[in-house]
């Protein structure tokens, strides 16, 4: 079906945009001005590293089987079976690329919990190990027809477990292993540029339509007739688009409302955060619930996450940009709420792949909720273990942290030899670095 194929190309490009630049902007604005470049670089580097790893052995480990998503019911798939897309038809490349973008952003999401303080080289080593032993197996089990799918099929339309809970748990474990930033809870560490964060959140929202609406890819079954799939495409994309939109709007407003009541003011960071929390929660559920369900899930995610992000201070946990409070909490809300709000009238219900889809509030039994909970637990355990092993391995070998002096001076200069801003006011001529840059110019041209 040409329209479907064309949409998948667009959706894939949209999800690529979510990491670079959307997530890089969203996170970058929230760091201090001395570490914004490093924060953005963690996303950009994840794009390069994970993208290549995915093509080499990721697709094989996730979707190993016949190359189009039919799994083997086992916990893990052979990384060498389709190494470097061996025997994968070029007409399936776009599906490989679509999945590639998901792996990339999952790795990049983790970086928010360890802002300002880790060596770029250690980050690269970690994401390669973690993506291989956490992301690929989990994707295989949830989407690729692996062990979990065979025994406890759980509904994850676009990545509530595979992407958000997965990244949230890894972020939590890494924040614990790597430790707090110098001066955490003592020095002010407020966001340095919320306009970047607002732009990033807006771009994430836009790109997320590729993420969620593009995830119709999972329900495209080669056994279906063309006419049947065509009909499904038309009805399903509208619903997932609508649910994604409504949940995000509700979450943003809910976050702002909680802020207004608790702190007296609705903030721009609250709006940006609410948008992301809503998108996270509707990610697993956008194909399983009604419009009303989407509104409830969004409002719940916005409200709960806005409270959850403040909890880290009680535990003195430096999850710097709230990967846990937004992605882990939001992901769990979305995954579990399917057990309550899932309905047979939703796209996935009509599709019939998952049997009775009615959640508890729609008169169903607790099986669905049980499977959702098992999916959440499975992801937490696998992701947590992989993060623990690779986190500790790096801590006791190459080390995670830059030196304390470098951290205080700013990681941008220490790790990259750059500073983000050279802002001179209109009356100031002191800020420009004319002398140095002219000598650099000579050096380059020579």
């Amino acid at each position: 079906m040409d329209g479907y194929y064309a949409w998948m190309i667009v959706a894939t490009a949209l999800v690529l945009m979510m990491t670079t630049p959307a997530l890089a902007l969203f996170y970058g604005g929230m760091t201090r001005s001395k570490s914004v470049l490093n924060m953005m670089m963690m996303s950009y580097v994840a794009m390069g590293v994970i993208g290549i790893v995915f093509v080499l052995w990721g697709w094989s480990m996730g979707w190993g089987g016949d190359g189009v998503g039919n799994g083997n019911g086992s916990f893990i798939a052979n990384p060498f079976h389709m190494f470097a897309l061996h025997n994968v038809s070029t007409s399936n490349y776009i599906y490989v690329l679509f999945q590639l973008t998901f792996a990339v952003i999952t790795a990049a999401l983790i970086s928010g919990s360890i802002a300002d303080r880790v060596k770029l080289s250690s980050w690269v080593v970690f994401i390669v190990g973690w993506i291989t032993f956490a992301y690929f197996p989990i994707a295989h089990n949830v989407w690729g027809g692996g062990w979990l799918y065979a025994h406890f099929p759980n509904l994850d339309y676009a990545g509530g477990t595979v992407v958000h809970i997965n990244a949230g748990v890894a972020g939590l474990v890494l924040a614990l292993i790597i430790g707090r930033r110098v001066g955490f809870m003592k020095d002010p560490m407020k966001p340095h540029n919320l306009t970047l964060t607002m732009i990033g959140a807006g771009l994430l929202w836009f790109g997320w339509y590729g993420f969620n609406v593009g995830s119709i890819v999972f329900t495209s079954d080669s056994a279906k007739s063309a006419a049947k799939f065509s009909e499904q495409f038309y009805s399903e994309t509208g619903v997932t688009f609508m649910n994604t939109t409504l949940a995000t709007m509700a979450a943003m407003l809910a976050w702002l409302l909680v802020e207004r009541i608790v702190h007296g003011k609705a903030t721009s960071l609250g709006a940006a955060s609410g948008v992301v929390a809503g998108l996270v929660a509707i990610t697993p559920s956008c194909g399983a619930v009604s419009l009303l369900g989407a509104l409830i899930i969004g409002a719940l995610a916005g409200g709960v996450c806005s409270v959850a992000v403040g909890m880290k201070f009680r535990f003195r946990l430096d999850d710097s940009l709230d990967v846990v409070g937004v992605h882990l909490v939001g992901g769990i809300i979305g995954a579990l709420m399917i057990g309550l709000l899932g309905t047979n009238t939703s796209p996935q219900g009509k599709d019939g792949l998952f049997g009775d889809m009615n959640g508890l509030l729609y008169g169903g039994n607790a099986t669905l909720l049980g499977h959702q909970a098992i999916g959440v637990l499975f992801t937490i355990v696998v992701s947590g273990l992989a993060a623990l092993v690779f986190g500790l391995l790096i801590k006791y070998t190459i080390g995670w942290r830059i030196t304390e002096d470098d951290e205080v001076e700013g990681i941008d200069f220490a790790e990259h030899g750059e500073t983000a801003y050279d802002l001179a006011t209109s009356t100031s001529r002191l800020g420009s670095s004319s002398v140095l840059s002219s000598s650099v110019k000579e050096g380059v041209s020579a």
Partner: protein
Amino acid sequence: MKLVTAVIKPHKWEEVREALETFGVTGMTVSEVSGYGRQKGHTEVYRGAEYDIALVPKIRIEIVVDDGDVSDVSDIVVKAAQTGRIGDGKVWVSSIDSVIRVRTGERDEAAI
């Protein structure tokens, strides 16, 4: 010769400048500064975390004037910068020994 230094609220700067120009002050030095007085700073909340912002942005104006103009200039600044609320700033006067105009080398009163 005296140096009149005023630290005022940023949004009052245009009014102060206009008032000084009307009086006949021909030049001044202006800088963006931060500080705090009795008002202290303020609190900002980001994702539920409260930050005490100690420093408040201010504008500092420096004017060199003849001894005879000191009280007029000071009064003009105070009048134009006043809102009556806490955080309006301060004006102070200090003596200076000599002034030289860079372009001509003129000294003291001739250089003002």
